[in-house]
């Protein structure tokens, strides 16, 4: 079935809002309240217009009816709402659900809010044993990403420099961001001397662990005009893809769901990788960015080392990426910060603004590359 291109540009991100990021020691409901309040203020609307509240399931605590608890804490009785578990791909996915629900006439204005506190609270999810294989010492997301990275190095000879290029770009951009959790730039000497945590993954390949909240308000472009939203950013396309939970069951360890997810989103948006002026790519680990670039079609499979060389991902480079620092430097929260930075780039208000940015590609990714969601934002 063909992707519905008629949605292109008919929905917008009307407002964005976030808390501070880092070790906050605050409960998730107050983080939601602050992020939502700021996002609504940014959109120039009151909470009375919101009739859908979608949230990601927090990793630090699993509660029944969490989505309803959040809506209650925000004093909103939505028509549509709930908590969605898809790991780090959830935020873009919830924006897509909101659009489809609004398109079907089920609701009009959606608040998509994220909050979690794994830094100060329970981080067990990120370090947990992997199912029946725990007895072999198979632990933590990092083990899974390491297995994928090794296989990429085996099949394509991917050099250390490629991984370093990703980490150095994110850290350079984060260092410039006053709101970033980690503002220490990373030199090649620092990176290449970085200790192995789970070889081949080094400390500087791994993202931060952060508390924080971040929200967006989504509505139709038409509703945004009626509500006199000051700075709406059009959504051009979105797409999804998912694969196995158990890593050994995957036919290929070196192909991600960025392939299917990206194809759908690019088709809906009517753009291709060469039209992208700035990218906000999920960088839980450096390998994720490299494989996402290949699978979105920015370069041939196995050639990403050439693509990211010479500061291509840094501000002023061919494809500036994670211009506020991403998960490696701004905050380890899963993905909403990338959407926010995309919105700022297209509004022309980013801290490290890409001149004339008119198409921003955003990726979200969950689990050990189990789930992938793509969002393409535009400027008109």
């Amino acid at each position: 079935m063909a992707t519905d291109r008629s949605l292109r540009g008919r929905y917008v991100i009307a407002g964005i809002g976030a808390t501070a990021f880092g070790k906050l020691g605050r409960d998730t409901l107050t983080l939601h309240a602050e992020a939502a309040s700021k996002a609504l203020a940014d959109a120039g609307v009151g909470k009375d217009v919101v009739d859908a509240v979608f949230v990601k399931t927090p990793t630090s605590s699993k509660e029944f009816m969490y989505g309803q608890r959040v809506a209650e804490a925000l004093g909103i009785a939505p028509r549509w709402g709930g908590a969605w578990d898809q790991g780090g791909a959830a935020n873009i996915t919830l924006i897509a659900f909101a659009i489809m629900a609004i398109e079907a006439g089920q609701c009009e204005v959606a608040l998509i809010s994220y909050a979690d506190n794994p830094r100060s609270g329970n981080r067990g999810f990120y370090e947990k044993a992997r199912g029946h294989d725990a007895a072999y010492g198979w632990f933590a997301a990092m083990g899974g990403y390491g297995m994928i990275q090794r296989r990429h190095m085996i099949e394509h000879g991917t050099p250390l420099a490629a991984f370093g290029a990703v980490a150095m770009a994110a850290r350079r951009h984060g260092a410039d961001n006053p709101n970033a959790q980690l503002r220490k730039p990373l030199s090649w000497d620092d990176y290449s001397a970085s200790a192995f945590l789970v070889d081949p993954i080094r400390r500087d390949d791994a993202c931060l662990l952060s508390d924080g909240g971040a929200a967006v308000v989504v509505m139709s472009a038409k509703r945004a005009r009626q509500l006199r939203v000051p700075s709406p950013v059009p959504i051009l396309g979105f797409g999804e893809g998912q694969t196995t939970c158990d890593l050994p069951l995957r036919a290929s360890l070196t192909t991600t769901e960025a392939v299917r997810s990206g194809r759908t989103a690019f088709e809906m948006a009517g753009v291709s990788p060469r039209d992208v002026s700035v990218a906000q790519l999920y960088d839980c680990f450096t390998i994720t960015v490299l494989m996402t670039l290949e699978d979105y079609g920015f370069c041939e499979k196995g050639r990403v080392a050439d693509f990211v060389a010479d500061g291509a991902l840094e501000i002023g480079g061919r494809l500036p990426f994670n211009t506020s620092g991403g998960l490696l430097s701004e905050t380890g929260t899963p993905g909403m910060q990338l959407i926010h930075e995309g919105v700022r780039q297209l509004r022309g208000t980013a801290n490290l603004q890409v001149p004339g940015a008119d198409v921003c590609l955003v990726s979200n990714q969950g689990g050990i590359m189990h789930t992938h969601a793509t969002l393409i934002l535009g400027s008109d």
Partner: protein
Amino acid sequence: MPTQSPALDTDTIHEAYLAGLAEGRLSLQVCVCGHRWLPPRASCAECLASKWTWEPAQGSGRLKSWVVYHVAFHESFRERVPYNVAIVELDEGPRLITNILADSAALRAEAKVRFVPSRQGEHTLARFELVA
């Protein structure tokens, strides 16, 4: 008292798999539709039926990927770091998470490996050694 290893899944299917390992036998599941798989599960993910039987694996395979843990995410591994965890593809097709009983520096992609039943606490695990 030594620290306990992380608990193994002990549903009916895993108990049967572990019982085979305890007798020195690595088994995989084969369905009437022809699909073969590990890790153990109760129904076939191809045809969705539950008409499968245990089949002894040859025990030979190839090393597809591996990692070396330099940090312990569980107390019982604190004295084992650095240790490897690998993905091995059996000659029959199924892949599994395992450890290679070798110096991690000696591991090479696509290296031939052979099943070795390996005692750990009260269980026997399916580990592999490099074939010279």
